[in-house]
């Protein structure tokens, strides 16, 4: 079983320029921008489940990321 981050497209405000989770995720090429939809998404196979993205997204009151068991 894996523990990974998941981004709720409705709550993500990347269209307003937010890049917090992309900035601070320790893993490279792990949270990416969907340039068409203008939302961030997680490449699950690269996620180590550290939850730092949840911390920064919640601190900015966007609350768009939750952790999931897979």
């Amino acid at each position, binding site marked *: 079983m894996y523990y990974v981050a998941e981004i709720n497209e409705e709550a993500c405000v990347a269209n307003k320029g937010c*890049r917090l989770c*992309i*900035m*601070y*995720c*320790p*893993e*490279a*090429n792990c*949270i*990416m*921008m969907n*340039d068409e939809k203008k939302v*961030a998404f997680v490449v699950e196979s*690269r996620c*180590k*489940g*550290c*939850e*730092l993205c*949840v*911390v*920064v997204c919640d601190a900015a009151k966007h609350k768009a990321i939750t952790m999931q068991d897979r």
Partner: protein
Amino acid sequence: MSKEKIVINPEFWDIIPQDYRDLVDHATYGKTDRGWKDVGSSTELIAEHSLCAGCPESIAFRHIMASIPAPEDTVMVGSTGCTSLVFPMVAVQNIHSLFGNQNAIATGLKRALAYRFPNQTKDVIVLAGDGATVDIGLDMTLQSWFRQEKFTTICFDNELYANTGGQESGLMQKGFVAKMAPQGKKFEKVRLPEIARESGCAYVAVLTTSKPSLVERVVKQAVLIAREIGPTYLQIYTPCILEIGKQSMEGLQEMRDSESAGERFKFREFITPEAQAFIDDMNAKKKADKLAASANN
């Protein structure tokens, strides 16, 4: 010089791993204004590695790899420690040196590159832990500065030997108790930034990796000043969350706490007048180019 170096013979394209194809298609080699803003929409020059979940070394690595001005013409020199677990997954030429020898290797490398490619600019960047930079490699670190070797030294300061389980390092804080240093450190944290300044570094900065825009600015300055003027040194706090007993998501807050007023990683930089004049000149030229470009539109 740009991506030409990594482009694949079309006949082999179908057997090339996807990660490599992504680099060819979407990495920012050759982009003159590359920076951390590219991340998320381009392929980064660092891939899946084995650092702990949430490790700030990993965040710092990402910010640095996004910021180095000319990755296709850069050779990095690493040393033993947690950083050496990342280098095999870095898409910039790099050399692993014996623990502590990194600044000696970089010296020879920089000189050889200048000799071999007299008409090209080649940047050399050392990236090593505090144990490698300040303890075992201190002689090589200092001698390269005394000799005014033109490359950048970056120290990932996590204030202990992380890779071997938490022994005392010269950059550990006084009184700090670690797993393998149970009596607490008896001496002050070595003031390497000040030593770097006095040893002839043209530019020195102390920071954490909590602000990618700041990391980008100092990395670019450090590399460009090293190209033109002399040695440069960056000391970046990358706390070892594992050894200081933090959770995987607490590294960023730890860095922010350590950079408030009066704390040991409050941002500071030293720059020689010559290096400052060079940077001012470069910024003035950039401004003039921008103005000229907008006038043409």
